[in-house]
């Protein structure tokens, strides 16, 4: 254990390294998948037989689109894990707020009036 309380700032603890990002091809592929997923969403919306399961279908499809943009276009897949560590919990809290408000207000106000 050293008694020296200082050290030169020229001794980096962690070096900044250029992280390899996605290629143009990868970006185009992601755009293709996003397009297909959006078409699927709209298709599911117009198919009467899918109406009973439409909500889970839409949640899965929009979740997949969300993840693709965040991972590839926002580079979370390539960047330091710390950025995911920052965004992930905040996103979870955002989901918590939506659900909490829905449940608490619904419980307080009772069933919606019929239009």
């Amino acid at each position: 254990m050293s008694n020296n309380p200082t050290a030169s700032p020229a001794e980096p603890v962690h070096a900044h390294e250029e992280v390899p990002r996605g290629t143009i091809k990868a970006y185009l592929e992601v755009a293709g998948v996003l397009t297909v997923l959006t078409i699927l969403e709209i298709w599911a919306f117009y198919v009467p037989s899918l109406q009973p399961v439409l909500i889970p279908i839409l949640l899965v499809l929009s979740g997949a689109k969300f993840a693709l943009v965040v991972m590839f276009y926002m580079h979370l897949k390539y960047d330091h894990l710390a950025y995911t560590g920052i965004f992930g919990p905040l996103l979870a809290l955002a989901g918590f707020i939506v659900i909490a408000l829905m449940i608490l207000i619904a419980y307080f106000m009772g069933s919606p009036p019929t239009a």
Partner: protein
Amino acid sequence: MAVAVPKEVVKARENYLTEGGLLSWLVTVDHKRIGVMYGLTSLAFMGLAGFEALAMRIQLAQPNNHFLSADLYNQFFTMHGTTMIFLVIMPLGLGFFGNIAMPLQIGARDVAFPRLNALSYWIFLFGALFMYSSFLFGGLPDAGWFGYANLTERFFTPGSREDFWAIGLLILGISSILGALNFFVTIVNMRAPGMTFMRMPIFVWNILVASVLVLVAFPPLTVGLVFLVMDRFLGTHFYSTVAGATPILWQHLFWLFGHPEVYILALPAFGIISEVIPCFSRKPLFGYAAMAYATALIGFISYGVWGHHMFATGMGPIADAAFALSTMAIAIPTGIKVYSWVATLWRGNFVWTTSFLYALAFVVQFTLGGLTGVMHAQPPIDLQQTGSYFIVAHFHYVLGGGSLFAFLAGLYYWWPKMTGRMMNEKLGRINFWLTCIGFNMTFFPMHFLGLGGMPRRIYTYGAGLHWDFWNMFCTIGAFVMATGILFLLIAMVESLTRGPEAPADPWDGRTLEWSIPSPPPVYNFAEIPHVHSKDAFWEMKYGNNPGHKVPEVAAEHEAGHVPHIHVPAPSMFPILLAAGLALCGIGAVAWLRITLVGLLIVYLAIVGIGFEYPTYGEHPSKERGDDIYPLDSRKVGMWTFIGSESLFFASLIGTYMAYKGRDLIGPTAKEILEIPLTSFSTFVLLMSSLLMVLALAGFERGDIKAGRNWLFATAGLGCIFLGGQAYEFNKFYHEGVTLQHNLFGQTFYTLVGFHGLHVLLGVIWLLTLAFASFKDMVPKKRALAVEFGGLYWHFVDIVWIVIFSLVYLMDKVTGA
């Protein structure tokens, strides 16, 4: 060799207080100066809040008193609460102590974003002045610091008082979020080499968790205030039952902020006490790890306890039970802290300084406030007491006897470091005893008054209710306390004018701030320290042999020994930007054209900040010596901002979903939303994200022309999206769905409109970058500037992905 500074007075050649003239403070970005400005401003507002409190105590001293009218009493009690929470305790804990001590404790030369730090302060100052300026326009706000709906609606509170309150809080919220973001990034990324999370000073832990809480708690409040402003200015009915809405929504949004806010106010205080007690007990903090985990746990649980403020609203037994349990649960980590302080005190070798006295008083008083808090975790008890003076006693013991006493302990503790002067301990003791006795005289009897049935928020009461004696007693106590605070001011002035010079390490401290001269030089540390243990400076001084002190003088700080150290240059843009923001607020309540001028100033100042520093948009480099930290602070900041923005949209989406199908009149979502058009808009926005990454790739490979063209194309698609939105809004409007028409109209326009506003800001951002690239201001080496704009752009894209599914597709199916 070592640079530890024990008792000798070592002066920096030029310290942060002396460098530059008075005007240099206006453009300073030095965290220590900004801390001082926060401190002075908060003290001034504390004086104002104290004046309001004394006036209220005179009014309540005897029954049927007419010292204050009911109206003036309401104004004072509203502004006393608002001021103490938003303009005193919060800025003292984070703005003052956070700035003064945190960067020094982690061995940093400044915070991550010095200009953002200055901006936070100036927005805070202008926001506070804006709120109080309502005094000139018909009176101060008067609907309580909690602003309960629907008392705050224009029908019940006409005039502009509440406008100032709501818009003022919106402005202050921006300041808080920017400040917290800055501290979060600083602590996460700028700790000295070797300072792992479990070696961080416990004060820094508390600032970290408090900052996170600000980032997650303020967005719901912002949304609640936006709804309130819309109700008051645009005639919406977010909190009004006439449109099928409920005022309870305000309480949820407000207390979603409000209870974490209690810990935002308390955590910095916990941190200070956790520094002061070990220092003056001559012992290390007992259970450091438990304290750190307890701090994090408090932050986590505090986000799930807000409902205990709402037991009396009738949330139902399940919600009541859930919030009762979570509220009791938060007492556990808080109890761990109290236990740890007491265990640290156990068999300590006490040094009876004023700071230590305040810390001891804190432990007792905060525990008292905490215990009555646990009482209110039980709905049946809370129902009896929530509207009574018992609650007034409870929260004053937590925030007054707790936070404020801790801040006074911290003030005495860090005063020598901050000013380079010692405080007079004799005056300090007078200050302490008068304040402590006065505080307990004022607030302890309020428990009796509450149990005796005296309601809160009343401006007078009748004789013969047996409340006279204790009310008079409380009033006398308030004046004793005010006298005590007067002695604090005397002690401060005496110290600054005649106080003896402070050594670098007057208390034989344990943390890094004591290793540098008092007051610190502008650059803080001549060399960034390496940390090997959690009590870094203690270990440097004593190593593994407690009996062997190694006193060595910090000769490096004297003339001729300091290497050239780059410190951030002053900037006029923060104050300019804050002034522009204040103009926006003034324009909203006075004359809308002023808002346009304000917005123009804000835009120009942001552009100024964006391109001001010579290294903007560049990666950290070894040559400049700014690559010593593990992550890029700007990127950490951007992701944190995006996360916080997610909570803003979550509150909007949550409100939309909660009100869905509750319209009293049509048309509703199901009848009016047009899927083909929106599907096209969605596709356009998704493709704009593709163009954005292509633009970034262009700048990164040095093909500026291609990058610029892709930027223009991205902004173009953004404009097409906005055009589609404008078409949709226009169509709905002509079909009778206005902002005021029904719940669907107001929640839809607000949610989708705010998203559109974000798209518009994104378009402006991208166009600014594109035009700047014509002037060679965005070359290859500055491609990061484009990446940050891109992150924001993709964020508005992912928000739309959620809105498209939840609002358009699902609503078409499930909407009433």
